[in-house]
Structures are given as structure tokens and as C-alpha cells.
């Protein structure tokens, strides 16, 4: 059985006290693509992705990732690679320690791949991760997520805190990884320009609702002479007005 949907959310909601971080979200993310999840701050992107990888439990609805409940089992955990927003690593552990951590905790760990990426990036294995630059740390976190050989890579605003050069390098790395390993990927960002370069499918999420979804080429065609960014912003603002009126 081939899975054509990597992420399938139905009426998904997450509430903190009385505040809904995500409510009634229904969406499908197709397999075999690099999917960009765009939306304004507070649209629920981070909550959605954290629900999808099982770091959060939903208050309402269900989400299935690769056909199973998120983080349901070690096998399911191994099939999903995740890089969180701040690309956290253990500051006291060295780069080599992090690779060892990956090898110890993941049966499908690809040690050769991890070593190659580290030397390609020019990282010193003995360097403590606390001493790395933001871009290097993001690359280390990505290496950990990739070398466990996942079927799906989930990246939550991985470049938000990086400078333009590191941003470009990171996005380039993701494009390469997806091409080489044949994994699906979901990336979130609030900047269309970050995603445009590497994604081939785009979903616009505003206030927990999908406002626009489709292959990037189709969206470009629909945008006509305007840029993709203009199209996305149009949908965001239209909806903003809508929700304001609704409230």
C-alpha cells in the first residue's frame, strides 16, 4: 500500500485554557512533495506541526501522519524527522555527541550520511553545540532529523532566526536531501520568499483554516503576472477582513 497522504487532519483543535491555538482544522498534505505551510503569526502553524509529530496532544479531532497516530510507537517516531523552531540542541554536548545520540536512539540511523553532512558543512565534531552559530546549529539539528532516515521531514520555521545567507544554505540543503532520499517534507514559515525557492506545494493557513492549497506551479499560473507572495498576501488579508467581520 502506498500512502498518498502524509498528513491528514480532521477537525483538529488545541486549546490552552480558554484560548484556542488551533481550532477545527481540516487539511491533507500529499506525499512525495516539499510542502510549504504559510500563514501569518498566530495562524496555528506551530501548533499544527507539533500535533502532527506528537509533541502535543489534540484537544479535539484527529491527526494521522503516514497513516498512524503521531508518536504512537518507536517505529512511528522513527518515520518522522522533526526540527523545532529554535532548532534546539544540547549546548554542553559536542557535535560528535549529537551524532552518537542519534545513533544510540534510532535503529535506522545512517551514520555515513550524518558524517558526510557534518564534514560537508565544515563542522568540527569536537565543538560543543553551544558554541555553534545559529546557522550551524540549525544544520546540526537538520542532520539529526535526516540521518534517522525518516519518511517524512517536518520543519517548523527552521530559518526564522537565521541570516539571509544561512537561510539560503539551509533551504538548499533541504532541497538536496529531499531529492536524494525521496522523503516528503513539510516546512512552515511566515515568509513566502523562504518557501518559494524550495517548495513545490503550498498551503496557506489563516486562523486555523486552509485558505489556499495547491502545487506551486498552479498557484503561479493563477497569480498571473503578479508574484506568488502577492497572491498569498491577498488571501491572508481577505481572510483577516473576513474574520474581523465575523467577530
Amino acid at each position, binding site marked *: 500500500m502506498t500512502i498518498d497522504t502524509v498528513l491528514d487532519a480532521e477537525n483538529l483543535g488545541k486549546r490552552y485554557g480558554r484560548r484556542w491555538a488551533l481550532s477545527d482544522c481540516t487539511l491533507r498534505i500529499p506525499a512525495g512533495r516539499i510542502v510549504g505551510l504559510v500563514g501569518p503569526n498566530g495562524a496555528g502553524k506551530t501548533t499544527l506541526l507539533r500535533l502532527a509529530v506528537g*509533541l502535543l496532544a489534540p484537544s479535539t479531532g484527529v491527526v494521522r501522519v503516514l497513516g498512524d497516530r503521531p*508518536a504512537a510507537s518507536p517505529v512511528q*517516531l522513527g518515520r*518522522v524527522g522533526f526540527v523545532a*523552531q529554535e532548532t534546539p540542541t544540547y549546548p554542553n554536548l559536542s557535535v560528535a555527541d549529537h551524532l*552518537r*545520540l542519534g545513533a*544510540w536512539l534510532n535503529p535506522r540511523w545512517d551514520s555515513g550520511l550524518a558524517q558526510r553532512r557534518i564534514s560537508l558543512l565544515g563542522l568540527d565534531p569536537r565543538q560543543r553545540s553551544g558554541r555553534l552559530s545559529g546557522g550551524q546549529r540549525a544544520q546540526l539539528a537538520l542532520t539529526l532529523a535526516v540521518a534517522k532516515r525518516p519518511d517524512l521531514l517536518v520543519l517548523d520555521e527552521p530559518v526564522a532566526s537565521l541570516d539571509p545567507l544561512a537561510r539560503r544554505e539551509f533551504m538548499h540543503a533541504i532541497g538536496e536531501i529531499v531529492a536524494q532520499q525521496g522523503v516528503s517534507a513539510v516546512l512552515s514559515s511566515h515568509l513566502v520568499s523562504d518557501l518559494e525557492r524550495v517548495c513545490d506545494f503550498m498551503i496557506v493557513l489563516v486562523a486555523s483554516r486552509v485558505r489556499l492549497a495547491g502545487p506551486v506551479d498552479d498557484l503561479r499560473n493563477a497569480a498571473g503576472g503578479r508574484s506568488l507572495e502577492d497572491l498569498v498576501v491577498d488571501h491572508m488579508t481577505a481572510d483577516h477582513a473576513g474574520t474581523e467581520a465575523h467577530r
Partner: protein
Amino acid sequence: MIRLTWRQFRTPAAVAAAAVLVLAVFAALTGPDLAHAYAATLAACRRAGDCPTATAAFARTDSALSNALGTLVTFAPALIGAFWGAPLIAREMEAGTFSLVWMQSVSRARWLLVKLSVLGLASALCAGLLSLILTWWARPLDDASAAIYATFGQRDIVPIGYALFAFLLGVTAGMVVRHTVAAMAVTLFVFVTVRVCTTYGLRPRIVAPEHRVFALDPASTGFGSEVSPSILLNSWFNGRPTSQLDPATPSLPNAWIYSSRVVDANGHDLTDAVLNATCPGVASRGGQPTVPGHVPVSDSAAQAARACVTKIGATYHQLLTYQPASRYWTLQWAELGTYVGATALLAAVCLWWIRRRA
């Protein structure tokens, strides 16, 4: 998972091992001398025929050092709870690294179980070794002072229970508070509170104490009572004396005296009202105790006080409530069991919490 736990824990483990080693070396260097000195003291006092005074003096010689080491053993569990327990989850939450480690192919229940097992074992080992060293080193002093219950929490097996409990308390606090420093403070506060409550509230009630009756001795009965923090806490939890008449405590080696009350045949406490009615003016003039060795009072006042005690002694006697030395190990095991049980409960709470998040 065990390898990762060890990699992340090896620095704190080394610090603790070094501390235990320092204490062990100190104990090994000074312990034999202490034992020899005690043996010599005993030999000398047996020849002279006055061992109680000699051993009491001996117990005082190294009491400052013994108290300092005892304090170390008392506070080691609190430190373990604050520095090993509290950061375990709180630091992962603070730094966001939980989203790194919980996304590896290991369920987070297993992650927590391995962490709790390894660090819990280390906590028990650390506290157990500290206690073992101190118990061995202080044996001559403990024999001399004949007050095993006074050092109950610093000797033998109970420190192991304290350390396990403090560690899990720290983990739980970190899980709830999610900030390392705040969790450390909560851990220390709750741990000290629980220790005080179990020491003065629970420990005396585990096994029913024994009672013994003594006639009031005019020569050794004074007025007013000594006030120390521990006596204050004890009277708080277990009731305070109702009159100012304070008979000296008869010598019961290694017994734990709960209370010394002055009661009549029906078990009613002597009240200040009765005391003042029986011998007017004595208690107010008394103020100072008349026990030998305390502040001297005038002969006439002392005589009046003795006459008063004799008069009171016709209807009242001293009732001693105490735990005999033979129950020491029962109480050690009971307290260890209580703390280990509480530890298991906290571990279950942590596991439930970490699964519920999935």
C-alpha cells in the same frame, strides 16, 4: 538510552563521586584514631569507675565535627533533589531540547524510565555511601552519647529513602513548574517541609510508645523548661507541657523521650493553676530552674521549691512516654518504606504526565 543518560549525567556523577571520596578519605584517616581514643577512654573510666561522666565528656569532644558531617548527610538528599531532580525535565522544557530528544525513535515513557532509574540509583547510592561512612566513623561517638534517635535521620538506611524521594520530588516539581530555578526552590521547600512533618508528626506515631511512671524527686525537679528549635517543633506536633514544673528526665540510654509529663493518678496533667494554689509564690519566684548545674538561687528559695515538689509529689508523679532503643530498626525500616512508597507514587505521576502529553 542508557548511554545517552550516562553521557549527560557523567559530570554531575563525577562531582558527587568526588565528594563521597573526600569524605571517605577523611573518615579513613581519622576514624581509627577516634575508635582508639574511645577504647582508651572506656578502659580508663572502668578503672576509675565513673563511665557515664567520661563517655559524656568523650561524646562532646568531636561533637562539632560530628554535627557538621551529620548536617552534610541531612542536606545531601535536598541537594540531590534540587540539582539532579529539578533540572531533569525542567531544563529540557526551558531549552526546548525535549522536542529534539522526544522525536528520536524511543518512546518518551522509556526515556523517562531510564533517566529515573539511572539517576535514582545514583541518588540512592550517593546517600547510602555518605550515610555508611558517617555511621561507621561516628560509631564511638554514638556509643558514647547513647542517643541513637537524635541522629536517626543521618545514620543507617533512612538517608537512602530521603534521597530517592528528594530526587523524584525534584523531577515532579520541574515537570509542573517548567523552570529550573523555580523548581529547585520548590523542591527544597517541599522537601524540608515533608522531612519536618515526618520527623515530628509521623515518626512518633508509627509504633505506639511505651510509658513509665516515676515519683517526683525534689532534688532534681525544677521550674520552666528548656527551649530549643527541636523541642519547640516536638511540642508543636505532640502537645506541650501544661505546667512549669519540670522534673529531670531519668536516664534511659538510647531511648527516644517523647514527653515527660506531671500527671495525677487519673492521668490529668498538673496545671499551673493547681501548682500556684498548692505552693503560692514558688513558681513565680522560681523562674530559674533549681537543678544542680543551672543558675544558682538562694537557699531559701531552693528549700521552698523542694518542699513544693514534695507536696505536689503526694498526688502527682512523672509520666515518661518514650520509644525504647530496641525499636530503632523497626522505625528505620518503616521510615525508609514510607519514603520509598512516596517515591514510587511520584514516579507514577511523572510517567502518567509524560504519556498524557502524547
